[in-house]
């Protein structure tokens, strides 16, 4: 500013000066400025959303631990999964606890299309991230590989097969549902690997307390998960497939994506292409996550609403807007012909008897190792509810819960939770697995209920199985060597393992007192502590099998509990 007489300012400058003076206008001006708009564009917001949900997912996995769980909704992401809601509703006829929240995702899809896939889904985020890191394609290749392929209809067929199976009573969506798959892989593969790495740091001499806090399972011996190798192979292969076909899992296999895709045909917002502005340069395909053909007629059911194409369009021809701009430039429905629909329907109907008649898990022919966590509903019902997310396995503080292999009950119960008492025992006053189960396969129980105390006195404790002695291997019984670890650790009161004390001369002529243990099945709750602590390590001299479990009338052992007779 010069002193004395001021020169007359041009109108723009006056406005600008006014704007500078008014803080509100200044803010508005700032927000609409080119730089800020570029900074706050949709793809940036999307990345923030993805980062948030991925961290939330990891946090929930970390918080799924006996000392941390209180209050955190650790299974919430599973409970928001509409496929879990719909398939369990089909198999059981009801919607368990929080599963109704899945409607929120459906509502979101009806508004904005498959935003779940690229804004929320932690597995989708993982795929996108890996695809981004290992993207080696340049030039024409980089967009040619994002064109729609006929293969991508496969997921819809898979969804139909899974849904028909669920409706008939064989719930198998957990095998491929992305959220279940992700929780399962973290619980049984990545969490123990991370803990192993942190332990190595501790072994190297760093003893800071936060290292323990960082662990998924602090303060326990190294956790192992039987057969988790194959869970690791599955997720690695699926994520690795990104190098060949970007978002291979999301485009080809994901049943949840298929469900949302089928719904998203009705969505209010979608990608719209202004055909007059478009120069057919195909650059919008460069980073198209869903292979949704934004360069032609947009396939709404394939579009993940990732908004990359809007960023990449040099002509500003693409926008995310309400439908109705140009109906000719859109393919709203999934491309699944009538023939394929019928074919997958037949497959679904066939799959049910195939699985059910495998026959390794009926009330007449079941494996003794098929012992379910406390609170589990009756086996038939259990299989209608368990989605193999393995949250229970992640929550288990002793490592007794293991993903079932093919051995225990075939494909139908693959990766569902079973208890392996060679590895550990079921902690008496613990109900962690029942707290986290999103579908009620393990119904929510209290410690009182588990132990049969208070108002559950009448019903008695939850019995997981029955312990038996192999007297040919038991040290006091077979070899006149004192032992009775089993009796010492038996946590029931009075003890289910009792002893008969005899004084004998052993093979070397020494007088020894033997406390020969025997089982009182009426008192045994099948917690497996005796088996876990038995020193006959390979094939235990005391072992628990499923028979006698209280959840099933058909797998019971005793007619009556003699300890309750007065």
């Amino acid at each position, binding site marked *: 500013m010069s002193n004395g007489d001021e020169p007359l300012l041009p109108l723009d400058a006056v406005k600008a000066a006014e704007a500078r003076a008014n803080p509100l206008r200044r803010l508005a001006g700032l927000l609409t400025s080119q730089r800020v708009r570029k900074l706050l564009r949709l793809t940036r917001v999307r990345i923030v959303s993805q980062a948030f949900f991925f961290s939330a997912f990891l946090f929930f996995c970390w918080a799924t631990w006996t000392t941390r769980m209180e209050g955190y909704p650790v299974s919430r992401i599973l409970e928001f999964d509409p496929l879990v809601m719909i398939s369990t509703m089909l198999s059981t006829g009801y919607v368990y606890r929080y599963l109704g929240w899945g409607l929120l995702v459906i509502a979101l899809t009806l508004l904005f299309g498959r935003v779940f896939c690229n804004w929320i889904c932690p597995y989708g985020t993982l795929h996108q991230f890996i695809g981004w890191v290992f993207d080696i394609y340049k030039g024409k290749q980089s967009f040619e590989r994002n064109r729609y392929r006929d293969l991508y209809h496969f997921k819809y067929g898979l969804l139909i097969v899974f849904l028909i199976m669920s409706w008939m009573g064989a719930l198998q969506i957990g095998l491929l549902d992305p959220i279940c798959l992700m929780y399962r892989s973290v619980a049984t593969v990545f969490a123990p690997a991370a803990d192993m790495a942190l332990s190595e740091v501790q072994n190297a001499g760093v003893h800071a307390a936060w290292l323990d806090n960082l662990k998924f399972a602090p*303060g*326990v011996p190294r956790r192992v998960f039987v057969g988790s190798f194959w869970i690791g192979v599955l997720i690695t292969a699926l994520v690795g497939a990104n190098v060949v076909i970007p978002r291979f899992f999301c485009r080809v296999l994901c049943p949840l994506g298929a469900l949302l895709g089928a719904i998203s045909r009705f969505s209010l917002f979608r990608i719209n292409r202004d055909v007059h502005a478009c120069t057919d340069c195909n650059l919008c395909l460069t980073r198209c996550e869903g292979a949704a053909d934004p360069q032609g007629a947009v396939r709404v059911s394939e579009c993940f609403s990732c908004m990359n194409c809007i960023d990449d369009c040099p002509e500003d021809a693409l926008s995310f807007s309400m439908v109705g701009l140009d109906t000719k430039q859109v393919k709203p429905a999934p491309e699944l012909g009538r023939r394929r629909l019928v074919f997958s329907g037949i497959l679904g109907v066939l799959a049910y008897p195939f699985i059910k008649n495998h026959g390794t898990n009926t009330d007449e022919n079941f494996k003794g190792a098929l012992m379910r966590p406390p609170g589990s509903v009756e086996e038939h019902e259990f299989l209608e509810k368990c989605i193999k997310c393995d949250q229970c396995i992640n929550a288990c503080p002793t490592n007794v819960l293991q993903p079932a292999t093919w051995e225990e009950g075939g494909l139908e119960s693959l990766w569902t939770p079973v208890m392996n008492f060679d590895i550990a*025992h079921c902690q008496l006053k613990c109900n962690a697995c029942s707290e986290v189960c999103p579908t009620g396969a393990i119904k929510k129980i209290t410690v009182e209920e588990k132990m049969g105390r208070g108002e559950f006195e009448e019903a008695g404790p939850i019995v997981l199985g029955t312990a038996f002695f192999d007297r040919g291997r038991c*040290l006091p019984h077979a070899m006149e060597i004192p032992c009775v670890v089993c009796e*010492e650790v038996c*946590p029931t*009161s*009075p*003890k289910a393992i009792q002893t008969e004390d005899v004084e004998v001369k052993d093979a070397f002529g020494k007088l020894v007192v033997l406390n020969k243990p025997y089982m009182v099945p009426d008192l045994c709750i099948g917690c497996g502590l005796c088996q876990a602590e038995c*020193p006959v390590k390979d094939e235990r001299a005391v072992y628990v099998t499923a028979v006698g479990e209280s959840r099933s009338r058909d797998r019971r052992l005793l007619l009556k509990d003699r300890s309750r007779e007065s």
Partner: protein
Amino acid sequence: MSREPTDGPDKPIQHPEYEKSPMDRRTFLRRIASATGLVGTTGYLSLAPEDWPFSLKDRTGLRSIPKIRPFRLTDFQVAKPSPSHPDVAVGRGGSPTEMLRKALDTLGGLQHYVKPGDIVLVKPNAAFDRAPALGATTQPELLEGLVRMLLVDCRAQEVRVADNPIESPPDCFEKTGIRRAAEKGGGRVYLPDSNAFKVLNTPGAKLIENWPFFHRPFLNVDKVIGLTLVKDHNLCHASMGIKNWYGLLGGVRNQFHQDINEIISDLAIMMKPTLTVLDGTRILMRNGPTGGDPSDVAPGDAVLAAVDPVAQDCWAFEHLLRRDPNDQPEYLAMAEEKGSGQRDWRGRLQEVT
């Protein structure tokens, strides 16, 4: 190397990038030298006799057997302020913490045993996932009181609380109330994971001369205090101050039931604690060592502190568990034989009310 311009009207049939490059002398010599060096080094490492420097040769297969270097525990004992002080003190009357203070004062005061700046490890019994009232695990309020005394009265640098329970460690520490009590008092809890163990060498021990031991919390520790309670035990009749050290063992410790008396007397020489505190306010009279029924627990009115754990256990067996001294557990006599204390407490014990 320079590249001939190949673009031109009469370019060769070969690929334009193709270029002939005969190896020059320098490159040839460099390659020969590095190949000789590589073969020579690996040859020396793998073929040189075992006693030559840097040799990796393992002719018999014995060199590659992993060598475990066991560590030793130091003697944590502290001499009494004067010979006239008792070896065992029994505090009676008041809250458990008051009884503990009386007992400790009779021994010459906790400040005599723990000096400012010491790192102290307190070993409670957290073996089972049981409520404190069931008398199977250390009372949390007594633990909190002790931790507080150590930090406030003795100005200890750090108090660690560690045990390797039989059941799930996080649950045991949580539900016995021991974690909360330890942290409320200002201590830090050390939970055992599989990496927290190292082989301990105990000279003179029969069963555990070299045995995995819960090592991590013992790094730089100056003083060790055992804090446990009096329990019936199915196999060795009584679980008291000495048996408490069992909770620091790792490995396949369930084999020790085959010779329980030997192992407990081994424990008595494995650990030479600064003090052993025995809580006699809740006594598990039967169904031990797990208990589980409140009717198994008898109330008591004593907290013991001792520099002689053998004498302490003998007195507790007789006066707290109220058993016939003639049925005394065998391991006490064996512990005396191994030199960790004297069973006869008469004349060395003082009761304060």
